[in-house]
């Protein structure tokens, strides 16, 4: 097990080089110029332009810029935003809890609904229930997030008035950001109604963001469950007279879950990328919203640092998931 983790950790080095290089190159490949972006139709005083180019290090050759950037990152410095002049890491840490909160509840929604839906579809194979689950999940998977999010807002917020349109909490609650997790902060604040408001703000974004993972989880659970249900040992435990419930939950599900856990682990990357659209539409002050603004304003350090941090998190989650296999099924040995 330790050797496995060590090997995986060693792989992080080329991944790190790849991610920094790709992030560095991609943002520079998009036409546009961060300094030009700071001026409008008026244009910029040439002296100020020079000063800014120098200040941002953009007057040096690209390989030098990249080497300096990597050196900086290795020293733990992700640079400063070109727009706000705040350290990138500080901005990321301020906003990241909002994304984690959203992604967690989106994933929770996806698992809580997707897993039982997949099991039901497998057990009731080729019935209306199966077709319904598969049809809905296919639709969910194919739906563009921004469109789905707007539909949710128009129906539940504007038409029915059940949920707020956007944001993390109603404006009358001035909850200090202690942990950055609004639900926790709202509870801590002790303001009556704050927690309820935070939950109501979380519902639509979590549904919008959780829909694609839900569809993936439901479909994977179904196919994995169907496979396991055909195994000899399932037939044997059935023959032993165990209840259908026990057979499914205790014996079949445990094995069927292995590929599902892989898929859930992979959803983390998807959730973080999906958060970019969801956060923009729901004005959710997380890193998705921040990154997209970084790209629009050609804020190189924000985009580079943001991508690097997100990639690090995805890699870490995947490592944890791979390690978890052994826990779920001891037959899988990491030799």
């Amino acid at each position, binding site marked *: 097990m330790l050797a496995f983790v060590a090997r995986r950790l060693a792989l992080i080095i080329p991944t790190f080089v790849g991610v920094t290089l790709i992030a560095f190159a991609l943002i520079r490949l998009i036409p546009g110029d961060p300094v030009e972006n700071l001026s409008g139709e008026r244009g910029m005083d040439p002296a*100020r332009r020079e000063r800014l180019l120098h200040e941002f290090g953009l007057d040096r050759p690209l390989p030098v810029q990249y080497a300096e950037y990597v050196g900086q990152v290795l020293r733990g410095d992700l640079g400063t935003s070109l727009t706000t002049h705040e350290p990138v890491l500080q901005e990321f840490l301020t906003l990241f809890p909002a994304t984690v909160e959203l992604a967690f509840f989106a994933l929770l929604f996806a698992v809580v609904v997707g897993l039982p839906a997949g099991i039901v579809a497998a057990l009731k194979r080729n019935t209306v229930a199966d077709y319904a689950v598969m049809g809905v999940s296919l639709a969910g998977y194919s739906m563009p997030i921004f469109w789905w999010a707007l539909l949710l*807002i128009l129906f539940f917020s504007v038409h029915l008035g059940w949920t*707020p349109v956007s944001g993390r909490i109603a404006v*009358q609650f001035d909850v200090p950001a202690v942990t950055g997790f609004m639900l926790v902060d709202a509870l801590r604040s002790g303001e009556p109604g704050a927690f*309820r408001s935070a939950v109501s703000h979380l519902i639509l974004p979590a549904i919008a963001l959780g829909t694609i993972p839900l569809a993936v989880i439901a479909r994977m659970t179904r196919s994995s469950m169907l496979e396991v249900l055909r195994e000899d040992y399932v037939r044997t435990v059935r023959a032993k007279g165990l209840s259908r419930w026990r057979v499914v939950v205790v014996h079949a599900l445990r094995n069927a879950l292995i590929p599902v856990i892989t898929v859930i682990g992979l959803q983390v990357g998807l959730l973080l990328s999906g958060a970019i659209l969801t956060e923009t539409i729901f*004005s959710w002050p997380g890193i998705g919203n921040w990154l997209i603004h970084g790209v629009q304003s050609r804020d190189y350090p924000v985009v580079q640092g943001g991508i690097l941090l997100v990639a690090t998190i995805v890699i870490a989650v995947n490592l944890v998931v791979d390690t978890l296999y052994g826990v779920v099924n001891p037959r899988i040995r990491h030799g």
Partner: protein
Amino acid sequence: MIAKRLLCAVSAALAAMLAIAPGAHAKGTLVYCSEGSPEGFQPQFFSTGTTFDAVSVPMFNRLVEFDTGTTNIVPALAESWTVSPDGKVYTFKLRKGVKFHGNANFKPSRDFNADDVVFSWSRMADDANPFHKGTGGQTYAYFDDMGMKNIVDKVEKIDDYTVRYSLKRPEAPFLADMAMDFASILSKEYFETMGRKGTPNAADIYPIGTGPFEFVSYQKDATIRYKAFDKYWKGRPKIDNLVFSITRDATARYAKLQTGECHVMAFPKPADLEEMRKNPALTLQQKEGLNIGYIAFNVEKKPFDNKLVRQALNLATNKEAILKAVYQGQGQVAKNPIPPILWSYNDAVKDYPYDPAKAKELLTQAGYPNGFEVELWYLPVTRPYNPDGKRMAELIQADWEKVGVKAKLLTYEWAEYRKRSKTGEQAAMMFGWSGDNGDPDNFFVPLLGCEAVKGGGNVARWCNKQFEDLVIKAAQTPKQADRAKLYEQAQVIVKEEAPWITLAHSIRFDPLRKEVQGYKMDATAHHYFTNTDLAK
């Protein structure tokens, strides 16, 4: 059975959870759905309207300001001023009894006075000022880009309530410049206190001004909170709290306005305007924009070095059709480079009519009987003065085709577009301008002046001696009436020389809820809530 009971319980809990009126706000709290986060909380560093709306408008004052809704200059922190006969010395008499805000780290010990005015200027102008080098290498965007160092020689304190600005040359638009956001007055005492405490940057992060609202808190990309300043020199604002709910997506902003989650929203989508008008809960205010959308011909390049060609294409362009299709009627045809709401607008100027036959005639005279091929650059983004560059370009392409001019449509990413335009690469290009202040000089000089050919703002690269003499003379003439006459003549020259096709001035819209009272749209596209109230 158990499952059914569970389902019922969950539904009931959800229903209870959701039974919140999303629009419930504390009494006296006005929520404004803004379009983005400010870049920072210092009015001198930045140049976007989003930042000004969040910083200089609610929390700061200038020596002089624009009367909301007009471009008239009115006294603010300066009660009165005099200009020397040569137009080079401006003496401001300052208002007494003006209080600064306070916060947890700073309680002002004195009222606003001349020291604050001198400090605010010297911070931008004087490299030796200990606070000149701002947080993280910030620069003074407007101060630098407007070349203020070349205009103002020195700023001196005469006594506690008198300040003298000595200019290097007569500059009549100077007063309008002083009403701009970058000229906001900071508290010298606050900066010095923070400097002594070893946290000079805090003064730029937690703003202290003399404005109608005090800063309360900011949650990045989420909310900015302000409270009414009880000791505001013009009287306490009517609302108790002002909240900016940052909502980047225009559709979400509109949804929030409908549900009552905000009272006023920024920048509606043109496609939503019709529905907003019909909504009984909303009011849609509108105002002529202080802007111009145009096509510039690069007069340094063939065939646009020939005036006849430029005039011909003016005649060949159907502006009314563009106004209908692109602006959907939300604008007016432009015949001058400045909009009609700006003083000195010359209404006597006759625009080129839509006349393809006459255009063809002029092209033949110019030596292009069969027309020519040309690149036409179009705007890659929506701008306040032009909602849809591509659609506009297609219409123009079709119009020009009728007189034999084949336009190849081309565009670049927005920053790249502006960068290339400054090098003179373009033949004909779409561009525009939103005025920063209410002075005609702010249109003529940066867009059509000879200096602006070098700077790149004059994308037609048109430098006409007669025009240049007029606008320079106007900038050096103290009396507005005299200046207006000079600008009127300048507009005649622009029309005749036709470096541009002046296309349209757009109309701006501010949608608000019916319960909002006393809100007035500003001429320079800022959002002021000082005199706004909410119906009880």
